[in-house]
């Protein structure tokens, strides 16, 4: 290597190392601050267990809703032409860039007891979403669904239609073609979108605490339990729960490695 290229490498290496340190150092801090000798007892404390179980329920509920409602939406956005499609797509993706706490306030304005939809629901049935597990799932779905839709839509759009058309000429019904031709082709993308949406739902904080409130076993998911415990000085529980979420995030990343990390 020539001296000149070496100098160029050194100039790039500086900021690159700082960038890496920016990501790595907080993780090192988390590991260093972890209560390793008591981590099992911290996590099996009743409130931490409640948060773990509730987080699992809510994030899986949000994932189910995102897949059930997001797949048709992604299909329509990818394959149907209709006026205002770009606007619809922008609206659907908005929660990805919207601050979650704004999402929480928006959900309250719509589905709160005084909200236009929530008020009507409450008058009619006496049922309300804020402060319920259903509310927490709604908040997580609001934030996580776009991650599924954006991945699924890209897959539907880049689909090779010739296989579908060939199946059609052979007399296969639309439902059969979707199940046997389209679905196998997009399955990896749908799985990746599901993993992303699930991870996002699992980490949801701002919209959940704003819209659903915070109560152990009902709406206090892991991120809320982490925040509340840290505020009350129980940093042991907070860090132990943080490590659980870190592990899950790493697992999702490993699962998606072929899509994102390359194969080198």
């Amino acid at each position, binding site marked *: 290597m020539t001296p000149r290229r*070496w100098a160029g490498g*050194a100039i790039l290496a500086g900021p690159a190392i700082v960038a890496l340190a920016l990501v790595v150092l907080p993780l*090192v801090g988390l590991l260093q601050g972890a209560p390793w000798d008591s981590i099992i007892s911290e996590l099996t404390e009743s409130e931490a267990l409640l948060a773990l179980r509730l987080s699992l329920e809510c994030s899986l509920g949000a994932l189910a809703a995102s897949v059930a409602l997001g797949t048709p939406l992604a299909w329509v956005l990818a394959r149907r032409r209709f006026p205002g499609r770009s606007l619809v797509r922008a609206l659907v993706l908005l929660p990805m860039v919207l601050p979650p706490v704004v999402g929480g306030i928006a959900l309250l304005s719509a589905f709160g007891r005084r909200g236009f939809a929530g008020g009507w629901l409450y008058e009619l049935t006496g049922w309300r979403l804020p*402060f319920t597990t259903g509310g927490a799932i709604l908040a997580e779905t609001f934030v996580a669904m776009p991650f599924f839709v954006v991945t699924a839509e890209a897959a539907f759009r880049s689909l090779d239609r010739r296989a579908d058309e060939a199946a059609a000429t052979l007399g296969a019904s639309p439902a059969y073609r979707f199940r046997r031709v389209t679905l196998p082709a997009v399955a990896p993308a749908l799985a990746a979108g599901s993993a992303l949406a699930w991870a996002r739902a699992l980490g949801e904080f701002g919209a959940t605490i704003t819209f659903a409130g*915070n109560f152990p076993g009902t*709406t206090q998911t892991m991120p809320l339990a982490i925040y*509340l415990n840290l*505020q009350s*000085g129980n*940093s042991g529980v907070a860090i132990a729960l943080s490590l659980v979420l870190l592990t899950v995030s790493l697992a999702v990343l490993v699962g998606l490695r072929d899509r994102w990390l390359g194969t080198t």
Partner: protein
Amino acid sequence: MRSHPFRCLLAVAAVFGLGASCGSSSPSSMAAGEPASSRGAAKGTLKVFAAASLTAAFHDAKTGLGSTDPNLTVTYSFAGSNALVTQVQQGAPADVFASADQRNMTTLVRAGVVEAPIVFARNRLQIAVGPGNPKGITGLADLAEPGVSVVLAAPGVPVGDYTREVAARLGISITPRSLETDVRSALTKVTTGEVDATVVYLTDVRAAGSKAVGVDIAEVQQPAIGYPIAIVKATRNRAAAEAFVRSATSGAVQRSLVAQGFLPP
């Protein structure tokens, strides 16, 4: 390819070097801090970390706190006292800390982070309900009724702990819908109509104006609520911090606090 080992070495040095320096800065060494440099008149900036229930009182210019000197800029950080304790222990740049209870202040006193506190105000609990008191709530016992939705402040947040203490003493079992991070956020759940009632301080209900109505809690049921204020030892503006704490017990500020519903210390 000869540059690779060099880069790796640099990376390792960077990670471990910075990691080690981060690891050594414990809360206690931060608390020692640097000696206060300015001992002249109150000037510069002063960061006051105060219990959420002091928001209206400290923001009110008429209170006179910190507004005595035009050269002094006072900035406030309001939150649940427990959250502020955690922040100060982690080295947040506070000059003065005012808590809504003794317990949170004691945590910082024991940690050696603050100087000796003085109580500058007292308060009372009140039930906050929506305008017109639609559920006809008359006392704490009504909050245990199944048809009444209630939020309380989370454990560790002074107003929540006071309420649970009183409820336990009276044998009332309240099941809240949510445990809020501070008193203001609990009150907001009532003023926005999401729940029927919460328990806050009398001064918070007053500050909410027409959006909330207070239902008194009997005198015999009231807990002792004192607001201690203290100088954070690591302050870089000791003169201003001392002046602020001194002014909190001065006649003018005390009169204004009483006008807002606080009780004298």
